[in-house]
């Protein structure tokens, strides 16, 4: 297996155009598990760790650009945590310190698991995914980017560059159900944003449908909102929980999140 390490975004795009079957590697917290257990054996890996353009986050005309290489540890602290509190809360629930130091939001989008914890808070904030290839750039709203269980719309030559969000600064929270606090894949999860400015409640939930899903309603629909959220789910029975439990848990989480945000 070849490993190539581009130093710039342009170089990364050229390499991926030449080697469309190659796999990008950022934090490696998903890819290395697959390699270690021989679940995938791509012909080549493109190591993105040295591409400075993918790191950190920046401001752009009131919006935030979160680099694909932004780690959970970075999303948990400083000014970014103040601007995106639900994303910071979600980041705190990911894995362990070791995982949060390496795992990235770009990797979470690349894996596109319905249990991806960065996804609900980003979806509730109307995030747009910026992708690029040697052919040019695309801006894809997150709900259109995620198309199924571990499936997104990336073409083989495309890279995720960043995620653009216009922070609502709405009262918001993230909650996750799992058997313990550390190191759990969510049984279900929920980000709630009570957008007083727009008069809107927005909830995005994970692990209860093939993709993370968004539900919105007017602010005065507070009473019926937990039922609306539970009704929008299409969960399955699996080792982590039953469909009925997930639907129930989402209803409870939505109620609690409303209390927290509208106290």
């Amino acid at each position, binding site marked *: 297996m070849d*490993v190539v390490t581009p130093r710039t975004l342009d170089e990364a795009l050229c390499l991926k155009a030449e080697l469309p079957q190659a796999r990008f590697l950022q934090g490696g*917290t998903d890819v*290395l598990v697959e*390699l*270690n257990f021989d679940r995938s054996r791509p012909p080549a890996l493109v190591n993105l760790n040295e591409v400075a353009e993918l790191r950190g986050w920046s401001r752009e005309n009131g919006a935030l650009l979160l680099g694909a290489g932004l780690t959970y540890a970075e999303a948990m602290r400083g000014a970014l945590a103040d601007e995106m509190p639900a994303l910071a809360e979600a980041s705190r629930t990911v894995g*362990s310190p*070791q*995982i949060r130091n390496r795992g990235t939001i770009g990797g979470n989008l690349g894996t596109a698991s319905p249990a991806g914890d960065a996804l609900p808070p980003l979806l509730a904030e109307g995030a747009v995914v910026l992708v690029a290839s040697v052919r040019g750039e695309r801006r894809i709203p997150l709900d259109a980017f995620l198309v199924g269980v571990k499936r997104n719309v990336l073409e083989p030559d495309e890279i995720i560059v960043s995620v653009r969000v216009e922070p609502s600064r709405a009262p918001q929270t993230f909650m996750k159900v799992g058997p313990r606090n*550390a190191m759990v894949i969510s049984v279900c999860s929920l980000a709630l944003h009570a957008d007083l400015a727009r008069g809107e409640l927005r909830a995005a939930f994970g692990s209860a449908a093939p993709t993370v899903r968004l539900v919105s309603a007017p602010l005065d629909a507070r009473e019926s909102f937990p039922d609306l959220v539970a009704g929008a789910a299409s969960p399955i029975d699996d080792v982590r929980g039953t469909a009925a439990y997930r639907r129930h848990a989402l209803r409870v989480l939505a109620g609690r999140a409303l209390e927290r945000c509208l106290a």
Partner: protein
Amino acid sequence: MKIALTVNGECRETEAWGGESLLYVLRERLGLLGSKNACEQGECGSCSVLLDGVLVCACLVLGAQADGHVVTTVEGLADGDRLHRVQEAYVQAGAVQCGFCTPGLVVATVDLLESNPSPSDDEIREALSGNLCRCTGYAKIFDAVHRAAMS
């Protein structure tokens, strides 16, 4: 492929296969057997090392990603025969039974005390949540961390 990294202050060069983890490189290529291999999926923390000063699971870093970078393993903590104060505290507190988890826990504890010199029990629980121990029941590990913080 060839990779070159600084391990415990020493420049090391080695051949590696592309798909190898940093843990494999450390253990099998460089003979540093301190970092343990148990789950190879980020769950147990027994392979914890510092990569450019950041706590990571060596089993989830590709060896090639460490090329040109700086790694500290448990072997790099002691000063000759003098144990690091965290290692000393683990011994004194009786926080070591079979010892399999110990290198990872010691490295994670060093990392914790670097940023938080006197952590509370909750902070310790959070910082060490990525490290599993099958033997001690963790009580002695808390003692060891507090002991190291006070030493």
